[in-house]
């Protein structure tokens, strides 16, 4: 169980020039337990900022964030975060990276290595546990990052455009891997992306942000494991058209009169 609730959350930043930026403005949102929510929106709309607020890395300027009714206070291993940039520690071997969260929580060495090994195998990296991160490709590093958060068994999983920098095939492989892990462990997921197709493939629900505000929130009821065929169903196409128009890509949509 892990229901995430944001109530009137806002975040201000002061730019170097002195101007005040409202990166997140009055966001209220309830993410139900086990739900897979994709947060989509144009670059600079406040997605990363919102995710870091939920992670507890920065305290919110306004509003409250709670998990199962308890207000969050700082970061916690219960809320795992996969970063957009590489976050695998270059100075630790793969296995030590994956088991690091368990080490922080005082799990005994043989036990934590055993758990880490199991997750490394599951992400397909069983044979590089003694490698240094510099010896791994970008896709492999993302797999390590995914194994690292799952090894911590978080109840909430936050992901910030985790696969944005990967090639097409690797990205699609990692989508399937993520869905498998999610089906097994059922964390509540908040997945930030700017990729409409990625959101349609993964989400139970897609929340659209624009200039710091939530401007749309739609349930995607397409049956799971979605396929090329199911993503071409009229229901899927209708969602996609609306999302593209939110991103200012209306010229890609034939029927311009359909309501947002």
């Amino acid at each position, binding site marked *: 169980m892990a229901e995430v609730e944001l109530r009137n959350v806002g975040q201000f930043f002061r730019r170097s020039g002195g101007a005040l930026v409202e990166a997140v403005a009055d966001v209220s949102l309830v993410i139900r337990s086990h739900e897979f929510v994709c947060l989509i929106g144009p670059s600079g709309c406040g997605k990363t900022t919102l995710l870091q607020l939920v*992670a507890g890395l920065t305290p919110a300027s306004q509003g409250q964030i709670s998990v199962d009714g308890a207000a969050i206070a*700082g970061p*916690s291993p219960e809320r795992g975060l996969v970063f957009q940039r590489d976050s695998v520690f*270059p100075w630790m071997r793969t296995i030590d990276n994956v088991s*690091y*969260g368990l080490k922080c929580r005082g799990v005994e060495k043989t036990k934590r290595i055993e758990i880490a090994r199991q997750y490394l195998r599951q992400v397909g990296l069983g*044979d590089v546990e003694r490698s240094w991160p*510099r010896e791994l490709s970008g896709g492999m590093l993302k797999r390590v990052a995914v194994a690292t958060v799952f090894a911590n068994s978080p109840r909430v999983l936050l992901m910030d455009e985790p696969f944005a920098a990967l090639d097409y095939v690797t990205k699609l492989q990692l989508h399937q891997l993520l869905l498998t892990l999610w089906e097994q462990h059922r964390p509540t997921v908040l997945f930030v992306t700017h990729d409409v197709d990625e959101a349609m493939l993964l989400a139970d629900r897609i929340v659209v942000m624009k200039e710091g505000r939530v401007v749309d929130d739609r349930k995607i009821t397409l049956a799971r494991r979605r396929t090329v065929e199911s993503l071409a169903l009229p229901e899927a196409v209708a969602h996609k058209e609306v999302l593209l128009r939110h991103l200012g890509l209306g010229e890609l949509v034939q029927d311009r009169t359909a309501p947002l």
Partner: protein
Amino acid sequence: MARTSLSVARLPVDPLGIIGLLALVALWWGLSQFHFLSRLALPPPAGVAAAITQNFFSSSYLANYHLGYGGLAGNLAYTISNVVVALAVSCVVGVALGFASARVELFRAFADPIMLTAGTIPILVTAPFFLIWFGTSRSAQIALLILFDVTIVYLFAQRAAANLDPTYVAAGRTLGAGPMRIVSDVYLKGALPEVFGGIRIALAGAWGLEAFSELLGAPKGVGRVIQAMAAEMDSQMVFAAIMTLAAVAVAFDVAIGGAFDFITRWRRRARL
């Protein structure tokens, strides 16, 4: 994907360096052999080698000058221990202050001027003051070295911590690392390559500085040997002292360079 991490065995000393060293000795031998310079200005290699072997572990000759019965080795031990103690203290102090200044703006505003001033103090000119404050004991030389070492280590540690990608710190925090672990597992490990660079630079400069500060007044040490032998016009022993100190400095650099390379073997080597 079956990649194994293979650490290539690396020679601790570059063979080219050894060739260069041999060439230098050959040149030295040639110059002294054909009397381009007087024996006093340039003693022959064989004579210097003999002076080293005869006076290395014990030397009543050096004892005559109140330099102890331990020979060159005893004086080297004094010099080395001062350099090592000062460097160890400076590493702890310099890294702690450097990290703190990188993280806490207020502390940096306070510490930077002090450290930068310390770095610009003409150490050789101020050295006599250390003699006044600490007398001719070991403390005078160690304090002078700490002033020199700590500035360098501080600046390298500060730069390393400031340059560390904040994503690593955020990742550590979300994985459950507390402040102590963030410092030891993230800042310290991530900053180590640059801090090591600073330590090596500090150490390289410390030998000459230690020998110099011994000249101003120390119970013994290689600097004192050089001073006493120069006064006696015994250039063979002066050379012997300089050569052994140089050998120690090179050996230290090779040893800690190797150790540092091993500890930071996770670093990215240039790769296209």
